[in-house]
């Protein structure tokens, strides 16, 4: 049985004080930015859902095999996942960086819409990344999209954990490697190496993909 302390040991840190510095919410945009909207002000709030639909259709358009994003309700999923019920938070963040004018996302010309989205990506890569990632993940969860994947001829389950996939069991006769490669050093075989050629202290390596 543990002892309940009535007196806190004096060497302890101060709980109340330190508690104020708790970890802040995650990086999904829920605590970020609060920018005054210009293009998407409260007066044109009815436009807002429409704008998100237009945006995601630029991100994931449809074709004969694949539905476009708005057709399967992705705008609602994105709103819910990234901003809870507060759609205004999304639009407040989008307003300064996404051109929703008739020459931008609302344009009838595809090239103008693409430019508006590209500019959004350049101006606010973090927000773009959040929306695009959320859109892509949600898209491939949708039953109609899963059907499209299956139509390509590959087995695919959107919730595979329940039933799994069938695979032939390991066949010892055929699947055991026969290459005969591999060796290891036994404990007693480990002996000192001469490192003088390495110059680990003197040489500084430029490393990585850009080397």
């Amino acid at each position, binding site marked *: 049985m543990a002892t309940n302390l009535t007196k806190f040991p004096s060497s302890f840190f101060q709980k109340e004080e330190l508690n104020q510095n708790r970890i802040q919410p995650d990086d999904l945009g829920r605590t970020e930015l609060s920018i005054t909207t210009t293009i998407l002000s409260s007066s044109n709030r009815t436009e807002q859902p429409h704008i998100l639909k237009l945006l995601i259709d630029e991100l994931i358009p449809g074709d004969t095999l694949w539905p476009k994003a708005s057709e399967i309700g992705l705008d609602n999923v994105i709103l819910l996942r990234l901003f809870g019920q507060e759609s205004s938070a999304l639009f407040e963040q989008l307003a300064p960086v996404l051109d929703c004018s008739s020459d931008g996302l609302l344009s009838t010309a595809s090239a103008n819409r693409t430019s508006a989205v590209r500019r959004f990506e350049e101006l606010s890569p973090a927000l773009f990344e959040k929306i695009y990632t959320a859109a892509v993940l949600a898209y491939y969860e949708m039953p109609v999209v899963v059907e499209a994947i299956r139509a390509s001829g590959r087995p695919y389950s959107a919730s595979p*954990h329940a039933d799994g996939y069938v695979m032939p069991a390991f066949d010892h006769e055929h699947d055991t490697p026969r290459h005969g490669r591999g060796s290891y*050093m*036994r404990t007693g075989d480990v002996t000192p190496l001469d490192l003088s050629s390495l110059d680990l202290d003197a040489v500084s390596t430029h490393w990585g993909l850009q080397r």
Partner: protein
Amino acid sequence: MCDILIVGAGATGALAALVLAQAGLDVVCLEQGAWVNDADRPHHLADWSWQRRTRWNPDVNRRDHADDFPVKSDSSQILMWNAVGGSTNVYGGLWPRYRPSDFRKGTEHGLQPDWPITYEDISPFYESADRIIGVSGLAGDLAMPPRERCPTGPLPVSDVARRLSAGFDKLDWHWWPVEASVISEDYDGRPACNNCGVCNGCPRGSMNEFSTSIWPKAIRAGCDLRTHARVLKIEKGADGRATGAYYIDRNSDQILFQKARIVVLAANGVGTPRLLLASNNLANSNDQVGRNLLHHTLVASEMWVDGPVDGHIGYAASLISREFAETDISRGFVNGFNLNCVTSTPSAGELAAGWFSSARAPWGSGHHQWFENHFGRSIGVFAIGDDLPNPENRVSLDPERTDSDGMPGAKVQYAPGENDKRMMNYMLDRLKELAQACDAVEYRLQDYRDEGGVYRTPAWHMLGTCRMGKDPETSVVNGWTQSWEVPNLFIVDGSVLATGGTVNPTPTISAMALRTATYIRDNFAVLSTATKHTAMD
């Protein structure tokens, strides 16, 4: 007063509790987190791939959960889970062992210490860990010392594994089916793996999650596991022995003190040094606690081949290559690495959103074409190597942030050294060769560096921060993982590993935990009153 107080109910806390409770000792385990509810696991939810990036993100800093503590770090991620079962709630279950030379790096080149024990000392505990945990694999790998037959046979060979093994054969490189803490046949009351591929833990129980397979047995044996019990401080008495621990019962917000004859820390390579440092620098008069953090050298590649290999199907890993596991000075660095071949992501969405590398489906008109060309054709390979210890790579207390109970968070500093960088360059070149040998039509290498060139590893292995050694000046615990300074204080988690080896560490961590628990069990009477650490031969 209990006989044994264990801090942390993760992989090692579970194994220690099992051994000690089954021996009839009075064992209490304090765990800051909760039980993980199976029904709540992402695997069952339609939006599981979204959950893996948010609520179930294995990065402790990307989920907002009161069970966690904040870890300030330059790494791109800090991967751990704080709950009964610890990080195994989200781990991948790759289960390779160290090799004999991993324990002898001091003799080999002196840039790392020798372990105070040998491969032969730990080998029987590898075998018993495998039996307790339930492992699949194939004995007979010439690149490893002989081992007993695995409790279950190898997992099915995926098309990814076939494609990779053909590439390895072309290069004349070693490869072998990967060992995994995943059962290929029903075992110990748990069902065989169903090849679903969603391997971040496994609520089905086919992958050993310590919460579902080990903890129930430890509790049946009498262990008193208290959840939502965050240990704030280990207390030391006038005789230099640990007397027990202050902890907060997070349900009632009461601070309690649990007295114990022996204290066992199992809070992982970040949590254990954090706790010792927060306990007035306990066991740290030589300033070694938290230092020499090892994450492994890590780079990766993602390749796409010209026909379907259905990498979304089957257990997450496929093959291992130990071709480069030993030091070869002619490569320009000491130590070795292994190639950890996985499959691909089980989620079409994850593939399209970007999985292993910077590649992802572009937005706009090319999106679907990209997906059609890449889905079912992707393969991932990690190269994992033995990084050299650096005392400046360390865990310390975060002076700014605290957890939800006011305990200081952890600060983690890690940067690769010269030898590590050379090794990673060499690894990147080999990954390129492998992709070419597999006839990849496209491949991307991943060096985990940001735009500024800073290496930001996704830190998933937390090792070495209370390392074992022969020398009390340069280590924190002795060969029995007993504190040099506090004789009834033992550490069983990955912080005691003296070197990182070239592979995923949990089989070695588990074997070490079993070894220490067995030692405590067999010497309980002496240890429960000892005022000096045990002399080692």
